[in-house]
């Protein structure tokens, strides 16, 4: 395999980890919305951490190997699709980071309630459906999806 093929494979692997991890987190978050028992919700929110770990590795791989690809192929650093992708990469990480912090507090509440009576709790349900947290998490995923589209259409290339 050439240097270009390695860089492309690892960059695409990063994209699979980033977006695939977001799918994992999304699947378990949606499943948590349909449950009432804190122990089940806590289990589902604990599983989202696997997705978050994949996203974090993917974030680093897409950027690192993406920059390497720009260098190997000889794209211009000022090309529209590259600039937009880098901006959206920052936006996606910022939204995901803030949303992730809020989700962590929800998970800790679910774990605490599970250790106590493990009965339905209005505050936990309210936090799970908090529109700000949902907008942050889904907005982060949407920004990553737009980056994927930019990688394929390459506007301004």
């Amino acid at each position, binding site marked *: 395999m050439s240097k270009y093929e390695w860089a492309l494979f690892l960059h695409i*692997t990063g994209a699979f980890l980033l977006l695939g991890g977001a799918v994992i987190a999304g699947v378990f978050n949606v499943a948590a919305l349909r449950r009432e028992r804190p122990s089940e919700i806590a289990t589902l929110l604990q599983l989202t951490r696997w997705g978050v770990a994949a996203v974090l590795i993917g974030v680093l791989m897409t950027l690192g190997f993406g920059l390497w690809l720009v260098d190997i*192929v000889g794209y211009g650093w000022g090309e529209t699709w590259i600039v937009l992708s880098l901006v959206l990469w920052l936006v996606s990480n910022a939204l995901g980071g803030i949303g992730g912090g809020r989700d962590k507090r929800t998970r800790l509440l679910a774990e605490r309630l599970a250790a106590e009576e493990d009965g339905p709790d209005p505050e936990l349900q309210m936090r799970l459906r908090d529109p700000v947290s949902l907008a942050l998490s889904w907005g982060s995923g949407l920004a990553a999806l737009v980056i994927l589209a930019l990688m394929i259409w390459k506007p301004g290339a």
Partner: protein
Amino acid sequence: MIAAIRPDSWNLPLFLHVLGAIVLAGAVASVALASAPAVALRGLPFRILTLVAVPSWLLMRLTGQWIDSKEDIPGDPTWLGIGFTVSDLGLAVLLVATATAWWAQKRPGLRWPRQAAGGLAFLYLLALAVAWWAMSAKPGA
């Protein structure tokens, strides 16, 4: 390099193909996680398979065929063969995993159906990783 000379008309099917493959990989990983012995979530692997994994497989496979019809690739390159093999055998694996996950939902006392569904999902995830290596690095191209 291929990306730089790709006709614009290939972009939509390629985007949908990659999107389908990524969602499929995430869904299959979710099934493997939700089937783990320590996780007691009855019915979740079956719902992920039917609502996310199978639809995303269809998206990936149909758009893959769409690109293939546009691209007119000469010969029968290894990378394309790997992609089609993983894709087509993968449907059989997905359907068996779905059947065992359904059985696990109906018979929560039995451990083997859930373990089988999780094991098949994990194996298919590994096969998908081979496919995305083949489709991106294109060995034999």
